[in-house]
């Protein structure tokens, strides 16, 4: 199920004079799933003896948005591109925030109220890095990764959510 990505290629090529064992190493794993995200299975993926800080974020289907009551959410993805973008962002976060490990799982299809549509975990030597990485990743994912959410409200109405953004 997991996609294990190669190390930080950009860093390696720009630091050719650095001994290989000094090149930062990290583990990035991302995937899309179509069933409930198995959180217990993900825990060991961010363990590292030099990581004193582990952080997790779960985005969960919420019952209420403004005045409307959500019955369920459904997520549609461009699956190949979504995994590529998630992997790109995971690698960028690992470099930018000096993470030891990172895992991102996004669920597609129906996600009932109370269940997680996305789980992100990361680990780092100190807590500042993990605390900075998680909000950055969520912001980027919500801007860049080709996944769309369709609300189904309790009154039966449905709508795709397309936050209007500037085109880059």
């Amino acid at each position, binding site marked *: 199920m997991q996609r294990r990505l190669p190390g930080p290629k950009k860093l390696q090529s720009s630091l050719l004079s650095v001994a290989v064992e000094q090149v930062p190493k990290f583990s990035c794993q991302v995937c899309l799933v179509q069933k409930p995200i198995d959180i217990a299975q993900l825990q060991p993926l961010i363990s590292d003896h030099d990581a004193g800080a582990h952080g997790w974020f779960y*985005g969960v289907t919420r019952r209420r948005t403004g005045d409307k009551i959500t019955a369920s959410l459904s*997520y*549609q*993805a*461009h699956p*190949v*591109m*979504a995994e*590529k973008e998630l992997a790109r962002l995971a690698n960028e976060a690992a470099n930018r925030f000096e993470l030891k490990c990172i895992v991102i799982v*996004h669920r597609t299809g129906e996600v009932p109220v109370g269940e997680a*549509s*996305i789980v992100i975990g990361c680990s780092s030597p100190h807590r500042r890095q993990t605390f900075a990485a998680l909000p950055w990743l*969520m912001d980027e*994912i*919500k*801007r*860049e*990764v*080709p*996944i*769309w*959410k*369709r609300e189904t409200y309790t009154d039966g109405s449905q*709508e*795709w*959510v*397309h*936050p*209007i*953004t500037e*085109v*880059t």
Partner: protein
Amino acid sequence: MQINVLLFASLRDAAGGDVIEIEVPEFATAADVLSELKDRVPESATLLSSCRVALDCRYVSNATSIAGAKEIAIIPPVSGG
């Protein structure tokens, strides 16, 4: 020339399918694809102004030529997470 374009979310619903075949000039850009789609799916014209184009799973600017792309996808504003 005839090309197939992948559609998603409300654009897919409006067009009634996950792929649409459209006719574009030989040296068409991403902007030309969006423009042709506005004619073919006029009820999504406003949304299309906010869409990005991805060639072979990479976002490109509207000025990019689509020549050589194996896959052309229209990416409406995303709402994952």
